[in-house]
């Protein structure tokens, strides 16, 4: 597909190596004994700031494991992961949490939001946790994902698509430059899925955020700048065009 933003992002890949995500030869094995599986098998990946990358692949191929490693939630057995120029293996356990808070945004498949908090408070909580100057104004950010009118509602009163849009806003509120998204549209209908992914694409292009989205939904790949496929822990060439 041709996308002007994609070209701009590709250009910045060479120019700004210090931003975005860079994984080199990551290997990770999970489980022990008989159940031992290679979740990541020599994975290397670069995602530039402003680039929206989709990863597809069969269940159990290691997609979530890749997000865990990229998001400083798990350490690879070997290989390096660099986010915004920071080598994650250099960070202590406590520093990792602080690093995630201000540098990495997550959008999970479900249970993204805290049931007790209103839409605006979801963002305010993360802002308070981060407490840094880079944080965005929650209401303005909600406005940009079309959720400002629901600022005072709790997650229980929102539709699935609305919840994911709030989740996107929350992931970006601390000024994160890497956005990791795991199956954001798994429980949404077609129209809602498109809407959510459209927001993801727009936000990552507008804010110059490197976004990695794992999805099973081939319908939404048209919004992505690049698509990779994961099979048995190996990250490969773009999925064959259907």
């Amino acid at each position: 597909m041709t996308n002007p933003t994609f070209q701009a992002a590709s250009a910045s890949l060479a120019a700004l190596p210090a931003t975005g995500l860079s994984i080199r030869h990551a290997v990770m094995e999970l489980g022990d004994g008989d159940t031992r599986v290679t979740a990541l098998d020599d994975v290397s990946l670069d995602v530039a700031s402003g680039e929206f990358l989709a990863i597809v692949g069969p269940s159990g191929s290691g997609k979530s494991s890749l997000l865990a490693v990229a998001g400083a939630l798990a350490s690879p057995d070997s290989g390096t992961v660099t986010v915004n120029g920071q080598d994650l293996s250099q960070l202590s356990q406590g520093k990792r949490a602080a690093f995630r808070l201000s540098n990495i945004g997550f959008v999970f498949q479900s249970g993204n939001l805290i049931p007790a908090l209103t839409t605006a408070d979801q963002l305010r909580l993360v802002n308070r946790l981060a407490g840094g100057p880079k944080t965005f104004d929650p209401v303005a950010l909600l406005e940009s994902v079309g959720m400002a009118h629901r600022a005072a509602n709790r997650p229980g009163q929102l539709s699935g698509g609305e919840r994911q849009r709030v989740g996107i806003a929350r992931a970006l509120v601390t000024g994160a430059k890497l956005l990791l998204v795991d199956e954001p549209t798994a429980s949404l209908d077609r129209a809602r899925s498109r809407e959510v992914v459209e927001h993801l694409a727009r936000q990552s292009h507008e804010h110059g955020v490197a976004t990695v989205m794992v999805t099973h939904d081939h319908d939404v790949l048209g919004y992505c700048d690049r698509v990779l496929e994961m099979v048995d822990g190996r990250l490969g060439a773009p999925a064959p065009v259907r």
Partner: protein
Amino acid sequence: MFLALRELIFARGRFSLMGGVIALIAVLMVMLSGLSSGLVNDGVSGLKSMPVTAFAFDQGTKTDNAFSRSVIDDQQLIAWRGVEGVAAAEKMGVGMANATTESGKQVDLTLFGVEPGSFLEPSRSAGTGLGSSDGIVVSSTAKAEGIELGTVVTLDRIGTKLKVVGFTDGQATFGHVDVAYLPLKTWQLITSGQAAAGTPTAAQLSAVDFHTASVVAVQAKSGAKLDLAAGDTAAGTSSKSLSAAFNASPGYEAETMTLSMIQVFLYAICALVVGAFFTVWTIQRKHEISVLRAIGASTGYLLRDGLAQAAILLVGFTALGVAAGLGLGAAMPEAMPFALEAAPIATATGLTIGLGLIGAAVAVVRISRIDPLNALGGQR
């Protein structure tokens, strides 16, 4: 506390149920504390108000009822007066008596025989002090029995007549019976069995051949530390400090132990119930906590938030329960030994909150074991 407060409001149904249990425990705590203080006052207020450091009982006296069982003599008194650090020591006689007022009302009295003018003489709220051979100073609580200044009580069986000349300052009861202070000589006359019916006369008093009393009451010099063991060796007594001597009053130990045991169980229940609630609450929130940790919330922040939530719940509802307990306590019937005292209630409140917090802390620590990786993927 950003999250803690919002969760309290969001899950107010669950938290109010838990808070209701905490409040009821607090009500029960206040009631037990009031009952316990009331029983203590009823049992030993007569001793509590005395300016005494220690009581010396005859060596080998059994603890329960030791006051009326022990017999001491002048040698023992003199030995105690010679002990270092002793400001004053006096003989004191203790005995129980049944009596009848002029109007035919039957009353029970604990007779405290003390030397008139000595440090053992009680401070009074009304009337004159001890002196005349038949004059007694009785507990102010005896007024409820219809006893007034000038009332003459006749001791049952022996027929000795005693006249109320004063009331103590506040409650003075011993073994749940009103105390009547009387001159030691008169006490000795009555106890010797040589008393005749009617008002004790000076001739009877000087004729009585009975010089022992029940205990030696010892007052230490201010600031001096009394060596009780040395005094006991010198005098052939076994002494107890004032508060330890409470146990020598009738039934005191059994009553206080029963109440203490109930209180200990309540504290344990409080810690367990609060712990169980927060364990379930934390497990219910497992997924959202893993999301928060994945986002980057520090363990310390989440622990502080969880503990603050428990503290708000405990302090709020304990205060509510204590207030309700105080209200209920004020409405207790007169006959019930019940006394609301600030210090024991403050202790009970502090312990309820403190032990509840320990229970909650054990549960909330689970937060640190929740893996942020759980947030990834669809599994819940």
